């Protein structure tokens, strides 16, 4: 009997998935078994990828260089890369009671690089959004904007002015963002009635944002479940066992 790898692979995957789903009934040993197996496999794979995808290519091969082979050019070896080994291993001193301060050195290097990037990161991420939030609220044409798909061609194209309906939308946009920002004024006591009411409105408007986040999050979580159902019912049972395409 020949080995049907695809069927075996589907079978172990289906059994593992059902084993994990037993948690929905209650905590049990099947779930704990598969949970621990998952953690073991994931950390094992992380160790494999750590060397094969990262350290070997970025550190070992660069340190030792390579000879020309299999159509690849030769590369020089850069010996300073070896100095990163003791620096990286300093991180493991976190387990020592006496020397755990040394583990902050490699962490400090990475955090230092990360925090130095924050200035550039902040400007690239938020300046376009700040400028995009400055919308015009003064209309320059009539109230209703004609629909370009149904507009009578004899009337000419839709003008580049700001129509009243668009200006109203922009006003709602600007007011929303101001109200939401006023809600986050926690550093000082707000006495003004205007800001207090804006803050209250901001809280309500924030709920609209959270409602949208909830709706799309639900879609994502259900998609993951539907995908698992597809795997079990269609890929495993229908196609794998019953051979129905």
């Amino acid at each position, binding site marked *: 009997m020949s080995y049907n790898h695809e069927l075996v692979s589907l079978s172990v995957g289906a059994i593992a998935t059902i084993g994990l789903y037993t948690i929905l009934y209650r905590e049990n040993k099947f779930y704990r078994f598969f949970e621990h197996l998952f953690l073991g496999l994931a950390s094992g794979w992380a160790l494999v990828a750590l060397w094969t995808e990262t350290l070997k290519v970025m*550190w070992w091969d660069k340190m030792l260089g390579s000879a020309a082979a299999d159509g690849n050019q030769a590369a020089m070896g850069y010996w300073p890369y070896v100095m990163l080994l003791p620096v990286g291993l300093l991180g493991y001193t976190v387990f020592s009671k006496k020397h755990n301060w040394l583990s*902050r050195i490699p962490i400090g290097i*990475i955090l230092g690089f990360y925090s130095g990037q924050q200035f550039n990161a902040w400007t690239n991420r938020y300046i376009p959004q700040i400028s995009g939030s400055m919308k015009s609220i003064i209309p320059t044409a009539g109230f209703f904007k004609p629909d370009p798909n149904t507009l009578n061609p004899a009337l000419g194209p839709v003008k580049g002015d700001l129509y009243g309906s668009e200006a109203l939308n922009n006003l709602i946009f600007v007011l929303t963002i101001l109200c939401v920002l006023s809600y986050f004024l926690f550093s000082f006591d707000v006495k003004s009635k205007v800001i207090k009411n804006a803050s209250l409105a901001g809280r309500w408007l924030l709920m609209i944002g959270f409602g949208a986040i909830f709706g799309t999050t639900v879609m994502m979580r259900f998609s993951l479940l539907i995908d698992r159902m597809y795997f079990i019912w269609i890929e495993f049972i229908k196609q794998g066992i019953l051979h129905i395409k």
Partner: protein
Amino acid sequence: MELLAQLAPKTFWNAQNGSGELFIKIILGLLVSTGIVVALFKTPNQLRRWVITAVTFFSGLFYVLFWIYPTPINRQPDEAPRNVLEGFSFWLSDAQPVVADLTNIIAAFLIGLGIYSLLRVHLGRIGKQQRDWQFSVVLIAGMVIMVIFGYVDWYMRLDPANAKMAGSGYVGWTFWQFGRDLLFNGLLQNMDAGMFSIVAFYILSAAYRAFRARSVEATILLVTALIVMLSLMGLIEYFWAQGVDGMHLSNNFKLDNVARWLRANVQTPAIRGIDFGVGIGLLSMGVRLWLNLEKTGGSN
């Protein structure tokens, strides 16, 4: 890309692959860096904070300078800098990928910290035969088996004679390839997906029990969530559109138009406002980390 194909010129910082000079320099480099690390072990208490502050500050200073210092425009591969100022800008530009490499390598070494921690905890549990130690055996066994199959499979694929393994149809596959595929695709990937999908049940149950219109805010959240979820359903959108199709003004009340209006004029600015707050927090945290103004607990 032609630059990479040429062998880099010989400098003090490099040597030919396999040469004695390279091995001697590597050993000397290792000795020097180990000596520095050993010296750090002997650092007096009052200097420790300054060592960490200096390391963090100079690391961050590189990227701050990289951001504010003028960058070379239309720099040609063999172009030499005209003066010291331009030379510094060339150096910053050339050093950034090396710095990214260094960060990648140090981060990779630190990932091993998590694995080491996991091993310590679970081997400890097995050694002391604590409660449910058998599951720790499963974890360690899974890790070891994955590492063995992963490395053997990777090593076999490096051999030019096994090049066909990378193609489809299991051509040239041996026990090791089938084993790795079973562990990775069969078990790991499916369990990964299974874990995440369990949340769907909890979301349904939590929404049913806790999502109540008890206040104005909760009602707004509820109504918005309902509109968004309805707008994600193409079938509902279609039937809703049939119901309001007519005069142009009423087209504004089609579900996709209502959802689009909410998205563009209320949802986007609301989330943008939250984002601005988060951004300012991140920026201030970045400054505090860079200047080591964060007061952390534990020994120094």
